[in-house]
């Protein structure tokens, strides 16, 4: 289903009566596949050069699903002639004309708040460059590799990131050599040693 078609289909998001407005999510059905399809279309239309999904939704491609507030999309902006400044405005303008709505720092597409993030570090730049395409029931989706997601979680280092790293290790989806090479390239070996020491008992 196309994103625009999806938006015109006012359906009940939580299983209640479609007439009950409190059960709707802003007249939108929550459907992350349509969100991804809209981002693919935006890329095809040249608004962004390349994108990849990271964060909790990116991790869900490899791990068990976990509740999350938003969809993190990392992007490369096409260079603008004569300007070194980078602005997300073209993305917002593009998506607003296709029914997206701004909510704070997010733009909501098909019921999902999407946060567009620039590649702000060499690790994330590499993660975007080496992202992989996954098939979501016929819809292509570009996603960070499991090794990059784990390395970014290690670099970010919040409590929830540490939980995610443990899930990556426990689920045995990481290619050890690849992961170690990323840690080495981005100066994260010491952080990994500290992590292993801290969670020795939890790493199978």
């Amino acid at each position, binding site marked *: 289903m196309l994103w625009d078609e999806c938006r015109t289909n006012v359906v009940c998001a939580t299983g209640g009566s479609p007439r009950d407005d409190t059960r709707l999510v802003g007249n939108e059905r929550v459907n992350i596949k349509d969100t991804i399809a809209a981002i693919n279309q935006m890329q095809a239309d040249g608004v962004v050069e390349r994108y990849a999904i990271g964060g909790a939704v990116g991790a869900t491609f490899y791990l068990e699903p976990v*509740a999350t507030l938003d969809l993190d999309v990392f992007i490369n902006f096409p260079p603008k002639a004569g300007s070194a400044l980078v602005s997300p405005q073209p993305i917002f303008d593009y998506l607003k004309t296709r029914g997206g709505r701004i909510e704070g720092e997010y733009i909501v597409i098909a019921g999902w708040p999407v946060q567009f993030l620039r590649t702000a570090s060499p690790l994330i730049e590499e993660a975007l460059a080496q992202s992989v395409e996954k098939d979501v029931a016929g819809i292509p989706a570009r996603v960070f590799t499991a090794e990059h997601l784990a390395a970014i979680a290690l670099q970010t280092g919040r409590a929830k990131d540490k939980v995610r790293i443990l899930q990556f290790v426990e689920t045995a989806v990481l290619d050890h050599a690849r992961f170690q090479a990323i840690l080495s390239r981005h100066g994260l070996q010491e952080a990994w040693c500290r992590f292993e020491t801290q969670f020795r008992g939890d790493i199978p």
Partner: protein
Amino acid sequence: MTFDLDKILESKRQFRRRLAARPIAEKLAMLDALREGALAIRSAPLASEAGILHEKPPPRQGEVE
């Protein structure tokens, strides 16, 4: 049924692995359902607004109500 913690933890690990191995479209649909649930909770009225009765503990000995 077991009270062996190691067995319980291993069983949970296996369950998470099985969940992780589900097709991606299925897992994304689960994310949609989780988000819908979160939104439903967020939009639910507060207990005080919904006219729910609250149980109040009795006053402690020596305490004046």
